């Protein structure tokens, strides 16, 4: 029982603190990559308390629900977007033997539950009764459709290599030479995951300069903050999954295992921010084309490679 309580406390700490750290890092890293300073005022030292100040502001803002909106769906959509990412964290190991629940079909569970998060955007887009939001919701749905397939195929390649679907089991079976062996799958998984999070350069559904945040156009105050939080929790969860599946989780020399996991997670989160600064937004048809002509065939190649190597050795 004590074990369960401790692991829940760890999950909640990861859920509430890491997204803020990633968000603040994004502020500062983006700023310096663009020769700016970023937030400097809140909290005194290099604006470290900027996101806390944002949170206080969001908590006091009026909650405007447009008269035309479908009220009930509009109100629960942010929760639908956020909660799945918390639930996913229950099966992610951060160190040897340190996982809340070791589900036998952990990988399948993760992929299934993460798909629900995108429903939040679709619900928000439809319920807002705003043309931009409907467009954004449609695009979010189309993106989920196209990128779910390469995500699932790349993930199943790791399942083939490890011979199990349990996430701790996969890390247990991991060897260093899996890095080159599963490299294609890792890149495909990471990119498809980014697209599911609607992060730049895959942010056509929220494109703020074109359809003004898409599904989130009509949202204000706390509900908007929950959507933002879900985006950053999404980054954290995606980084954790890529670490666990493709980068060997807690494996690594010298440092303790949980620290290795965190180092890898933060390195991946940095890459997520880096990609946002470096690439222009993909047009909607380019997005679809990248998924079907680029990532899906690559994932199939990875499956073939995994199968051949696994059976021959």
């Amino acid at each position, binding site marked *: 029982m004590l074990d*369960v309580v401790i692991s829940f406390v760890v999950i909640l700490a990861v859920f509430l603190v890491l997204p803020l750290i990633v968000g603040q890092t994004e502020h500062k890293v983006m700023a310096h990559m663009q020769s700016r300073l970023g937030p400097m005022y809140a909290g005194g030292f290099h604006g470290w308390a900027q996101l806390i100040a944002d949170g206080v502001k969001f908590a006091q803002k009026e909650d405007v629900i447009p008269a035309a909106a479908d009220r009930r769906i509009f109100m629960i959509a942010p929760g639908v977007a956020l909660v799945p990412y918390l639930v996913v964290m229950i099966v992610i190991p951060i160190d040897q033997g340190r996982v809340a629940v070791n589900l036998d079909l952990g990988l399948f569970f993760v992929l299934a539950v993460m798909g629900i998060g995108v429903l939040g955007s679709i619900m928000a887009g439809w319920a807002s009764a705003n043309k*931009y939001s409907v467009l954004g919701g449609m695009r979010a749905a189309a993106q989920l459709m196209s990128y779910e397939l390469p995500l699932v195929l790349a993930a199943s390649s790791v399942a083939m290599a490890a011979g199990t679907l349990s996430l701790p089991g996969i890390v247990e079976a991991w060897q260093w030479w899996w890095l080159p062996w599963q490299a294609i799958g890792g890149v495909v998984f990471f990119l498809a995951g980014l697209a599911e999070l609607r992060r730049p350069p895959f942010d056509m559904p929220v494109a703020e300069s074109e359809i003004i945040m898409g599904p989130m156009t009509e949202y204000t105050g706390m509900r908007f903050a929950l959507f933002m939080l879900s985006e950053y929790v999404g980054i954290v969860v995606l980084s954790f999954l890529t670490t666990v599946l493709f980068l060997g989780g807690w494996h690594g020399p010298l440092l303790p295992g949980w620290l290795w996991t965190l180092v890898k997670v933060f390195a991946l989160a940095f890459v997520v921010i880096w990609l946002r600064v470096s690439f222009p937004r993909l047009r909607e048809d380019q997005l679809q084309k990248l998924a079907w002509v680029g990532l899906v065939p690559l994932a199939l190649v990875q499956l073939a490679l995994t199968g051949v190597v696994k059976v021959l050795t």
Partner: protein
Amino acid sequence: MDGYFGSYALVAALFAIGVAIVAGALMANRLLRPTRPTPDKLTSYECGVDPVGEGWAQSQVRYYVFTYLYVVFAVDAVFLFPWATVFDAPGFGLTTLVEMFVFLGFIALGILYAWRKRVLTWT
């Protein structure tokens, strides 16, 4: 908390905690926020002008073909997972490997067909 139902009970517990976090945040927001709705504030946002027509306007959804593609492949992908865990079990030899290439061939053929039918280009 062991066994099959025990582990899913924990998943349910974490789900309940998540719902409580969202509800708590919205409740705090309710206690702290002002509420002064005006008819203008409650109109849909359309870049500052009065909204034209309804938000749920008719539009051409170009993505529906991708939905078909996805449904076909996702059903295939579901069968991939149980197969992935047992395919190199001793005694199967090369049979499962050949099976995999048949499977990959089907998916690749499907994408090739969609590509030849110009589903993947828009203009």
